[in-house]
């Protein structure tokens, strides 16, 4: 499958560039940590101890950190018109979307792996009860968020819009993920019941719908 090879080629390119510009990635991680710390300080004591608020606050860090990652991976293409170079390659434009999506997912995973422990410690959020549930819910949600973030970062970059706009655009769209995952994890960690199927269904439906639609639409709209 030529396309798979091309996706991995482009993914390799993106990750190599991210590795070379490590300081920018470190900036995003520190921002995530800062968000969690500031909110934890703000909510000191009170009823902040516990699953629901920790997940909600982690989501704030995921959303902002994620938006910065999406912007960063797409900015690589807009510098010096590199995107036109890619568009001249004899390949389906969907390959660009998928490789960017994977690059964004790698960055989001890094973000989550760094920030989540900070949230867990500061909020005394006892993950050990169901770490797998937490990981699968957050993981599935971040895939949906990256699907939308990758599409709109491409759109925002190709129309040279200000950075803040990407966050404004993707946050409301991602609210179903935030609501479903926080409710789900509240159920699991505060009431101890198993993963609620309908909530997980919302997240999976979100992922499926927006992965396919974004992939198709990206091809229609991406231009140098």
């Amino acid at each position, binding site marked *: 499958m030529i396309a798979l090879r091309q996706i991995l080629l482009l993914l390799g390119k993106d990750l190599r560039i991210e590795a070379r510009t490590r300081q920018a990635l470190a900036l995003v991680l520190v921002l995530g940590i800062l968000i969690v710390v500031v909110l934890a300080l703000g909510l000191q004591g009170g009823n902040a101890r516990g699953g629901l608020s920790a997940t909600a606050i982690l989501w704030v860090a995921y959303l902002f950190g994620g938006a910065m990652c999406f912007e960063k991976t797409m900015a690589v293409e807009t510098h010096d018109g590199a995107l036109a170079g890619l568009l001249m390659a004899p390949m389906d434009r969907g390959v660009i979307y998928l490789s960017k999506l994977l690059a964004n997912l790698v960055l989001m995973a890094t973000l989550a792996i760094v920030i989540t422990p900070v949230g867990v410690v500061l909020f005394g959020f006892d993950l050990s009860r169901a770490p797998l549930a937490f990981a699968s819910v957050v993981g599935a949600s971040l895939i949906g968020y990256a699907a*939308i973030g990758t*599409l*709109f970062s491409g*759109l*925002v970059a*190709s*129309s040279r*819009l*200000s950075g803040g*706009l990407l966050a*404004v*655009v993707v946050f*409301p*769209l991602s*609210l*179903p*993920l935030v*609501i*479903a995952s926080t*409710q*789900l994890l509240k159920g699991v960690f505060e009431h101890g019941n198993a993963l*609620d199927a*309908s*909530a997980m*269904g*919302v997240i999976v*439906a*979100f992922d499926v*719908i*927006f992965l396919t*639609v*974004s992939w198709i*639409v990206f091809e*229609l*709209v991406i231009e140098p």
Partner: protein
Amino acid sequence: MSSSTRKLVIRAYWIVTLLVLAVGVWLSAYYAPIESEMGVIQKVFYFHLPAAFCMFGACFLVFVAGAGYLWQRDQRWDDLADAAAHVAVLLASVVLLTGMLWAKKAWGQWWTWSPRLTFSLILWLLYVVYLILRASIDSAQKRAMVCAVYGVIAFLDVPLVYLSVKLMDDIHPSSVELEPSMLLTLIVWMAGVALLTAGLVAGRFRLARISHKKSHDASGVTGGMA
């Protein structure tokens, strides 16, 4: 249809709309009985529900216009999306405000995270962001493209918002059985708000068409549209 008859039709349309709304107001005030459980505040329902329904219709119109633009790249679709989005935000604001007033009287505080209120808040946010997006891109073609994509994605998001909001525990389940007289009031209001919505969308659409025609008459690229 020459200009004078067209103006007549428009005037007649608005007169009918205002009449229906006036009848609605009268019905709400004097004809509809006071609901036993919720009391007088329930009368806000006759305006709240039709507004929510038409808001949903306007959001769907933005979706259709966006999909139309992506398919045909015709500026008229974009103008329709522009018009529908403005009206959707207006209606969402009405739904939110009436909902909050209802919440304040019925449950004592301006805001409760009841699924219905949360749903209309998120919808309001989604389509206000649409207007922000539209205002921040100056190249007409790029704006139309980006807004079309957002219009499609936002509408696909709506059912997911609804489903996720339903997961939230609803502390104030409020379901009201409608007596025939209440139903009549509701139907009149539905007609009134629907006529009003359609009129606003058509008006804004013509406004967008005319401002297009004016901005680059020389090339006459975007043909006139009845």
